[in-house]
């Protein structure tokens, strides 16, 4: 049976596509090297729309006459004050553009002017080489390094040096335990329970926060801060799984890409990528729950604990709460063997 995998890989070859949701421009070419925060594609976002009724403004009887007297065509840019249409005669009446913009439509004697909107920019998200470009649509980037996947992210991307908070990984990070060494760093810490901590980290100008867990009522604050946050385990007071901690430890002081953009609807996870000067091989994105696999318990009890799968139990197992489920025996880091529903396990590899 297919089981979700959460990657904790010391070295892999990563291939990620970066696609624009609408037609736009790809700003890099095949072969170019990109950093995670580089803007690699952009598209114009819709601006505001002004509907200028030429027929009514200039008192034309017929729609065709209004069209004939227009000075611009669809697709042309205009500046504020430009004459868009004009009557004939010795003292002509004119209709001027009320704002800078682009004519995007002419419809039944009306001009539709689109005022400039913002730009939608797509960041590379990983450091690597552009291997494919789909003109106007997006690109594929490939790179080698360590990959760690989280379970929740606040939608932002940054790069910085990985710094591991010197408190025990299960401890709470507070305003008081933030320190000046964390400035410009991507900080790995345990748990955050107060909005003040997230705001203080913003003021300290950290590049990013990797947390084992966070209290769920901080979601709103976490989305507002200016730096990326990734939760490795989720919501609640959940300690970081040992396998992830070990991997972070071996990469401390290295540059790490913290990409907290993800899409739960498509089962896509937020990712941490540490570029390494070595050749990795692509990892399998799915697995099966079999004896000997390293797994993680995803929800309480035992949430966040990595374990060794000892045996998948035959048939259904009766839990203490009366539920009958497919389950496995797993050995926790403390050597304790516990029974956990298969649905509450993901494979770490």
């Amino acid at each position, binding site marked *: 049976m297919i089981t979700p995998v959460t990657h904790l890989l010391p070295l892999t070859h990563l291939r990620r596509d970066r696609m624009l949701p609408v037609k736009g421009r790809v700003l890099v070419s095949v072969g170019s090297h990109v950093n995670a925060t580089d803007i690699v594609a952009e598209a114009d976002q819709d601006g505001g729309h002004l*509907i200028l009724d030429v027929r009514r403004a200039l008192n034309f009887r017929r729609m065709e006459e209004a069209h004939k007297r227009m000075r611009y065509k669809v697709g042309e840019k205009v500046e504020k004050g430009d004459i868009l249409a004009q009557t004939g005669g010795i003292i002509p009446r004119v209709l001027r553009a009320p704002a800078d913009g682009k004519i995007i439509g002419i419809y039944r004697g009306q001009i539709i002017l689109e005022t400039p909107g913002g730009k939608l920019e797509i960041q590379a998200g990983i450091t690597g080489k552009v291997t494919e470009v789909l003109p106007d649509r997006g690109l594929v980037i490939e790179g080698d390094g360590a990959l760690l996947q989280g379970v929740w992210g606040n939608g932002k991307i940054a790069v910085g040096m990985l710094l591991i908070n010197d408190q025990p990984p299960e401890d709470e990070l507070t305003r008081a335990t933030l320190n000046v060494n964390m400035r410009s760093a991507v900080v790995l810490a345990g748990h955050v329970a107060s909005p003040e901590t997230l705001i203080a980290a913003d003021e300290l100008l950290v590049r990013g926060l990797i947390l084992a867990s966070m209290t769920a009522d901080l979601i709103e604050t976490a989305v507002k801060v200016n730096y990326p946050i990734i939760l490795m385990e989720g919501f609640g007071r959940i300690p970081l799984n040992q396998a992830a901690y070990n991997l972070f430890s071996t990469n401390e002081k290295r540059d790490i890409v913290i990409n907290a953009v993800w899409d739960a609807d498509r089962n896509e996870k937020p990712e941490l990528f540490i570029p390494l000067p070595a050749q990795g091989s692509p990892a399998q994105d799915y697995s099966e729950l079999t004896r000997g696999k390293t797994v993680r318990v995803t929800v309480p009890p035992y949430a966040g604990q990595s374990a060794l799968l000892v045996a998948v139990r035959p048939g259904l197992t009766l839990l203490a709460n009366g539920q009958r489920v497919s389950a496995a025996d797993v050995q926790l880091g403390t050597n304790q063997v516990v029974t956990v529903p298969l649905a509450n396990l993901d494979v770490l590899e």
Partner: protein
Amino acid sequence: MSTPTAEAESLLSIEIGTIHTRALLFDLVDGQYRFLGASRVLSTYGAPFYDISEGIFQALKQLQDGTARNFLEDSRLVIPGRADGAGIDSLVLTYTAGPGLRIAVLGLLEDVSLESARRLVTSTQGVLVEAIGLNDHRKHEVQVDALLKAKPDLIVIAGGTEKGATRSVGKIIELVSMVLQLTPRDHLPEIMYAGNQAMQKHVTEALSRFGEVQVAPNVRPTIDNEVLAPAQEMLAKTVTRIRNQHLGGLQAYASITSAAPTPSSHAFGRMVRYLSQINNPQKYVLGVDLGASYTTLAAAQEGKLELSVYPLGLGAGLKYALEKSDLAEITRWLPMHIPDDQVRDYLWQKTLFPASIPASVETLAIEQAAARQILNLAVRTHRARYQNPLQSFEPVIVSGSALAQTSPAQTLLMLLDGLQPVGTTTFVLDPYGLTPALGAAAEVNAMLPVQVVESNAFVNLGTVISPLSNARYGTSIMNVRIEYESGEEAIHEIRQGNLYQLPIQPGQTARIHMEPLRPIEIDPMHNADTRSFKVIGGVCGTVIDARGRPLALPADDSRRRDMLKKWAMALGS
């Protein structure tokens, strides 16, 4: 889509859910259609597969192992079935997978056609991103902006009764036409028109240059009459066409299914509508499917269906449930003390791991508390949307993992607390989630759903009688005399504020007589004064719910928890 054959016997139903892909097998046994087996694996429409096919393949392999039948040859589904028994004769497919569709509605009067259009689109898994009617006083260009920014996948236009307004409908069409002209070609939404039929030609002429316009019968042919059913059929087809672009592999499967793939909610509604045609015409049949991302509520009376899909559920749907509820509305149902932050954290964690299962007594209690609030939210929203008091049902058919994976008593208690029906109600559990499959199968084989419903694939949880009384808590309000078929009798005293499980065994028939000691109403919705009922015991026996409506829980935490435990014990939970 393949043409169904007259001699088709076995039928396979595939459901692509937001979490699981399920395969359900039906076939003839001794001349009757029966449900023979099911399999369930994780869906694969998202990363890393981005294609439903892998999930279907895994589900079929599992079903092969479980039923000792062969469906696959060289990893391909054998259809139609062969003489050696391999393969299946017909295939139907339903789906809930994929993000909610972005839908915009346009109509004339706020309370008339626009409201009907809203009801229409909430019968599918969508997010209403914009609604524009005649009373929308925003400037024309602001409306254009709003529609463009909403980026709808689908625009539904209603408005104008038959022989009614045409000019106003024309204005709406002009607005839509302008918006479509400004929309990039590769992002044009689907268009569906369900307004004044006199405008049909005009609408088609004005909008068909932007793509095919789906025309459905008017949802509001007269001011007082709403007709949603034909438009719902059309909407289901339109949604499938859009989903073909979102769900990798769906289009390929559509070519081998015996009927076009259909949204699960639509098939679920179709089945509930059918059941309402063969049941008590005085009462609504209610169907509730409590899923991970969506809750579907279908209420039907004499074939008239009210269908709503809410983004509420016990997975991703918890986000919306938490947004729409005070946490206290969930924690009030907990029979033990669990700190608020732990409850909130657990429910948010569940949004990240929607397939997870509550593994402790506490986490099960949290999920069941959330389920009660979701049921309550859904039924309250439905009442407001359809201006239908919706309190009295017969029967209630329920499905969804949270309701099916727990003990029958716990399921029944969740339903009573969440739905709070009045009168006499029979609760039927669909433990295998067959209802949407049967709704889809009905299009291919009319006999199959009828015979499977009559089989033992559904579980009768029990009949619940909920009398209303103004008496104070603990006051005796009536005696219930049970007259068994054997001639034996038993009498039970019923006190206000309590739940009672009458000793009627599953399948056992008995007549119960209510002898009021205080003024009570048994079925206030229908002014029925029947005091005597014939009942068939369900797995929870027959239940008297004398807790009153709306159900009032003690304000004191400790008393409330004691009360919840007492009610649970009364049902043997």
